[in-house]
């Protein structure tokens, strides 16, 4: 019994494609959707190859999955990786009718196409691919002769799209740009804070914790030396070691007495 290899490929890749598509539509986190659609595209590339379109399959992986989907992921990073949709639908009837129309669309298209194409047959692309000595050459021949105008037009389109992106994401400078010189000057102004490095937390013979602040020359505590996360959590965590030492001595003195 000869198993039709193509059928196997179709079932596996096709199945994965559908699973990926559903996953994309149904995931809560946007990053998961992006990954699912990448999966769909790679499977589609395999199907293209199965249909004697190797060039197109490679282009699908390189351009579509590799460039376009990565672009999607970059934008997701800008927008917020962990942003997730709430499940409550705000427009009344949207979900119900959306699914209804989607199903209707699928059924009608399938039914219509099916009845139209029952005896279409399969010519295969062996002859077409051989004509110019390969699939790439054949597509090249078509692009540069029959579809030359479309080719030029899409080229212009790409340039325009690039320009458009630049213009669309342009940020107007409302304030004058702050130069490095101005930043340095500001750092050394009176009352601006520490010109130099911030002090490390105090490390002493008896206390080497992060929550032990350093002591300034005049005897006050340098609270800036305590790292931000500690400082912001709870002020009671900051311990003045001198007080601790004095207390310890008193306690030890008592113990000795």
């Amino acid at each position, binding site marked *: 019994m000869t198993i039709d290899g193509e059928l196997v490929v*179709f079932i596996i890749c096709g199945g994965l494609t559908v699973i990926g598509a559903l996953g994309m539509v149904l995931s809560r986190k946007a990053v998961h959707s992006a990954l699912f659609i990448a999966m769909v595209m790679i499977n589609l590339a395999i199907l293209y190859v199965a249909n004697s379109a190797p060039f197109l399959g490679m282009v699908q992986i390189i351009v579509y999955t590799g460039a376009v989907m990565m672009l999607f992921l970059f934008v997701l990073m800008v927008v917020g990786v962990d942003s997730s949709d709430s499940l409550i639908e705000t427009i009344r009837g949207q979900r119900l009718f959306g699914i209804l129309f989607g199903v209707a669309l699928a059924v009608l298209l399938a039914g219509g196409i099916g009845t139209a194409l029952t005896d279409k047959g399969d010519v295969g692309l062996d002859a077409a691919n051989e004509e110019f000595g390969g699939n790439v050459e054949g597509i090249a021949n078509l692009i540069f002769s029959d579809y030359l105008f479309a080719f030029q037009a899409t080229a212009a389109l790409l340039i325009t799209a690039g320009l458009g992106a630049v213009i669309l994401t342009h940020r107007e400078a409302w304030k004058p740009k702050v130069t490095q010189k101005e930043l340095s000057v500001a750092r050394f102004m009176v009352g601006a804070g520490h010109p130099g490095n911030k002090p490390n937390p105090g490390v002493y013979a008896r206390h080497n914790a992060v929550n032990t602040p350093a002591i300034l020359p005049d005897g006050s505590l340098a609270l800036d030396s305590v790292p931000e996360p500690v400082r912001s959590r709870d002020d009671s965590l900051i311990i003045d070691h001198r007080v601790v030492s004095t207390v310890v001595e008193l306690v030890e003195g008592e113990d000795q007495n």
Partner: protein
Amino acid sequence: MDPVYYIYLATVLFSIGAVGVLVRRNAIIVFMSVELMLNAANLVFVAFARMNGNLDGQTVAFFVMVVAAAEVVVGLAIIVQVFRTRQSASIDEPNLLKY
């Protein structure tokens, strides 16, 4: 194997993409659903190229990819700009052009 099955698969993918556009609220996921629909169309072209025996379908699919790329560039730029001003990527957010 009858290449019509590829067409059926593309139909299913297209419908799933359409439902995704209608149902999801995150703008980027809606955009991805549109990409899915374009890919389904590409699959149809490739299958027909095989059924008809010439490479025109593949050429058109190629051009579709180019156009989809350009469209993604511009679309995402817009989404980024909207996000910068409104701090929200919901597609229900720009709803002022109404009665």
